[in-house]
């Protein structure tokens, strides 16, 4: 059993909160630069150019890429041979607290969904745990803005609706979202599981590197097809018209019941932030 001090986790989460908000991941940058090159609608190309300028300023000035520094989604893969010395949940939330106040990030969390008083430290984080073999802890910190979160949807389709039904649902969700989620967007799709699991799959899909091709050729083709369809909509960057409506579509699936076909679409904006560390 490997012993791990809670403070180490707090430090890591603190630093990851600041880094995620100020430095856009390389895979997202590459994708935006690539789309900027390929976009030939003048106004859309200009918007993409300004997004590049924006993330460069953010990195240089060490300030947030976007003012919505989000609610902090944290994914923890806990090796079953790790023993955390202290309270793991509290260690993560303390990291968020420190990161958000010391990093001059925005406090965007209310303590109760109806009474709506700001917690003023951006806690609690939305934490998901998976237990895995080994004695390491892998933490992913992904601040999530709500412009795109609010446009996300899930549905319980009938199995007979099949692949066409899933496509229709994904495309309709993107169409309905229009300019609200700050296009160009990243589209995370979950298919299968249960009502609860499918939403989590969609969110985890957003953590996949944008430049990695799905290892299942069937789903690689499915993702490409969806991306082509979305980018023929003409919504474009900012919603002012253009090719680049989405940067990528990422799909994750899991087994499901014979009677069901759950699907969830979690939208993310071009500020697709996430940082991972193995401790």
């Amino acid at each position, binding site marked *: 059993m490997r012993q791990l001090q809670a403070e180490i986790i707090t430090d890591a989460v603190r630093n990851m909160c600041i880094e995620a908000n100020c430095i856009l991941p390389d895979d997202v940058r590459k994708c935006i630069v690539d789309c900027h090159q390929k976009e030939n*609608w003048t106004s859309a190309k200009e918007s993409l150019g300004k997004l590049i300028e924006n993330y460069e300023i953010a990195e240089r000035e060490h300030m947030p890429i976007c003012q919505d520094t989000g609610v902090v989604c944290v994914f923890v893969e806990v090796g079953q041979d790790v023993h955390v010395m202290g309270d793991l949940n509290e260690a993560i939330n303390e990291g968020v607290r420190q990161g958000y106040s010391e990093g001059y990030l925005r406090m965007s969390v209310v303590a109760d969904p109806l009474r709506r008083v700001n917690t003023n430290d951006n806690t609690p984080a939305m934490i998901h745990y998976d237990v895995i073999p080994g004695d390491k802890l892998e933490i992913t910190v992904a601040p999530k803005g709500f412009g795109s979160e609010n446009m996300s949807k899930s549905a319980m389709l009938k199995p007979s609706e099949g692949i066409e039904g899933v496509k229709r649902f994904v495309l309709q969700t993107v169409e309905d979202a229009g300019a609200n989620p700050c296009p160009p967007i990243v589209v995370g799709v979950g298919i299968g599981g249960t009502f609860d699991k499918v939403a989590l799959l969609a969110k985890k899909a957003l953590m996949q590197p944008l430049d990695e091709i799905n290892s299942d050729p069937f789903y690689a083709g499915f993702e490409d097809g969806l991306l082509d369809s979305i980018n023929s909509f003409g919504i474009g960057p900012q919603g002012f018209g253009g090719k680049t409506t989405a940067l990528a579509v990422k799909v994750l699936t899991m087994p499901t019941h014979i009677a069901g076909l759950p699907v969830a679409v979690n939208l993310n904006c071009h500020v697709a932030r996430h940082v991972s560390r193995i401790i």
Partner: protein
Amino acid sequence: MTVKTISTPLTKDIVSSLDCGDTVLLSGTVYTARDAAHTRMIESIKQDKPLPFSIENAIIYYVGPTPAKPGQVIGSAGPTTSGRMDIFTPDLISAGLSGMIGKGVRSAEVIDAMCTYGAIYFGALGGAGALLSQCIVSSEVVAYDDLGTEAIRKLEVKNMPLTVIIDSKGNNLYINGRNEYIGAVKEGVQCRRKG
């Protein structure tokens, strides 16, 4: 593409001179307000109490900035989704508001009020809070300090880059811009945008 340089106050003359799709460089005063501040302003209107700033020919910027670091005027300050304010907006427009800066679609009720009273909906580049912060030269909380990032701030901006999304005739760039692009793709022309 037409670039128009304008200054506040956003008078009705300026409003009627702006067209959907125009690029605008805005200088002058704008007030920040988002969900919670709107709720309070509408309560004030209902109770016949004064608003925290003069709404006549004013511009509201839908933004909740990040805190300023030492030496900064303001932190990142890009637009939030305007549609959440739709329910409050017609009352503010009829009270004199003549401009809004945000991102995302507006309701038919908002567009109706814009056409009736004369108002402009400007878009700022969504997700470009670091870039947009650079055209803000001063920031001062003028009301609802307890709301933190949602407090009303008076901002002085200089050459803030905006696009007219909806003009006072109801023309809408979300519809027109997209149709124009799709039309051009159909015709096989891809390198042009109007004007």
